[in-house]
């Protein structure tokens, strides 16, 4: 039986027909080099958007823009119906309470224990200690790392650190999760474990998410598998089916070269996509 990290926050009041994330004509550059140019995309409620692209194509920058960690040079970014490209940092801190983010290398606070890392957001919100402990334990149980409470990040393997980062991101049941290459640099077995956790979050809680990766096998595993709550692990969708809530975006040289479903992606005639997917 899957246990869910609980939240005291009321259910989302957003209009389900409105996109959770909306980029409209977003461009950003650094030191004279254009990284993203005229990017427009949406993430619908409950949708998992997989952002593919070669290294250096601006995927991580796009994710940071979606969380307000960077400001675009032009264009608008709307998250939960609020313009974040013009929003002051103080208000962004409030909005980020609804967004969980898993960083490329985990970005765990190395001076804090696993428990304090996962509990960080809850402690900042001055939630009572007993409640913090309960929710941290649940989040760590979700990633199957409840035995690591008192360990420091340096005592964990790379895969365990990513799982703790996922626990930290989901501890307050966010409405949107941003994954920045959660399997980057990991061995295939550990990558599968992480992808299974992402799938579990998608299929059990139907959380909207934007996932950056350059590993095609991870992306297609998410599109072709579903999480079985009874068996507590992922299984292929019967009859070669595809997950309807999982869609793709492909970035190349700062532009979106594909935006659509798994089926459309694998049947695309675009020469770049054919070469990229081969």
């Amino acid at each position, binding site marked *: 039986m899957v246990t869910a990290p609980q939240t005291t926050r009321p259910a989302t009041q957003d209009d389900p027909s409105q996109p959770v994330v909306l980029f409209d004509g977003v461009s950003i550059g650094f030191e004279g080099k254009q990284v993203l140019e005229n990017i427009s995309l949406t993430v619908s409620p409950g949708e998992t958007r997989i952002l593919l692209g070669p290294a250096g194509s601006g995927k991580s920058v796009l994710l*940071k823009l979606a*969380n307000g*960690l960077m400001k675009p040079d032009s264009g608008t970014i709307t998250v939960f119906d609020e313009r974040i490209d013009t929003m002051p*940092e*103080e208000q*962004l*801190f*409030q909005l*980020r*309470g609804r*967004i969980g*983010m898993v*960083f*490329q*290398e985990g*970005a*765990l*606070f*190395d001076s804090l224990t696993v428990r304090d890392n996962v509990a*960080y*957001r809850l402690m*900042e*919100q001055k939630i009572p200690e007993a409640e913090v402990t309960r929710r941290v334990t649940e989040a760590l149980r979700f990633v199957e790392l409840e035995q690591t409470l008192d360990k420091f990040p340096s005592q964990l393997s790379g895969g365990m650190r990513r799982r703790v980062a996922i626990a*930290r991101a989901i501890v307050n049941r966010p409405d949107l999760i941003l994954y920045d290459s959660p399997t980057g640099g990991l061995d295939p077995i550990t990558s599968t474990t992480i992808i299974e956790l992402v799938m579990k979050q998608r299929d059990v809680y139907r959380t909207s998410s934007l996932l950056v990766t350059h590993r095609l096998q991870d992306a297609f595993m998410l599109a072709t598998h579903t999480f079985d709550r009874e068996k507590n692990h992922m299984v292929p969708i019967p009859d070669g089916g595809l997950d309807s809530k999982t869609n793709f975006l492909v970035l190349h040289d700062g532009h979106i070269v594909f935006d659509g479903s798994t089926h459309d992606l694998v049947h695309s005639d675009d020469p770049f996509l054919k070469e990229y997917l081969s």
Partner: protein
Amino acid sequence: MPFDSIESLTKKYVVAVQDYAILAGRAIANIFQRPHYFGDLITQADSIGIGSLPIVILTGFFTGGVLALQSASSLAQFGATAITGELVSLSMIKELGPVLTSLMVSGRNASGMASELGSMMVTEQIDAMRALGTDPLKKLVTPRLYATVVMLFFLTIISDTVGTLGGAFVSVVMLGQNGSQYFHTAYQTLRYPDIIQGLVKPVVFGFIIASIGCFYGMTTRGGTQGVGRSTTQAVVVSSVLIIFVDFLISQFMINVFGF
């Protein structure tokens, strides 16, 4: 490696000064805004204050000692060794106490702040903190700034005291001077403006150390090499600024108090 044009170089420095001013201004103003991180303030005060105590005591003691040693040999030519205590206490309290303590704390803590925050920058821990809804300036910079200002003030007083005692040790034990006379002249020569000058300086220097250390840490780019560069720059810039600002404060105080 391509050279920057004068225009882009100037622009880079102006932007850096602007960014520094914004960071320092916000770090000061944060003391009036919630949330307050008193736990972090105490931790930093312990690390900066108690942690720096051994080097400050050693530096103060030997600086006072060498001052007594050097001045006594010069004063002996004029038969004025009796005012060794006066010279040591004035030098320590007005100049050497604040400046040397600040330089030692700068070497230890500006570098520590730049490397710690720089490491957090390059490993995305600062971004993670922002993503978790915490203002890194409030959590990381403000406690360091206020802790350094307060602790450097007290460290300077300790350094002044130990320096004067170091001078006494050399004068009495090594040079055979009268201890009572040493302390009498050391005390009698001090006036309030001297004390004020000696206590204003560490407050300003503390601000320089923490703000420069945090600024270089928070603007670190380029992996571990960038952390090393930030650490070096933080120590160099804060040390040079301390000596330059010391000159300005001394000039200002002389104009105000007349000596």
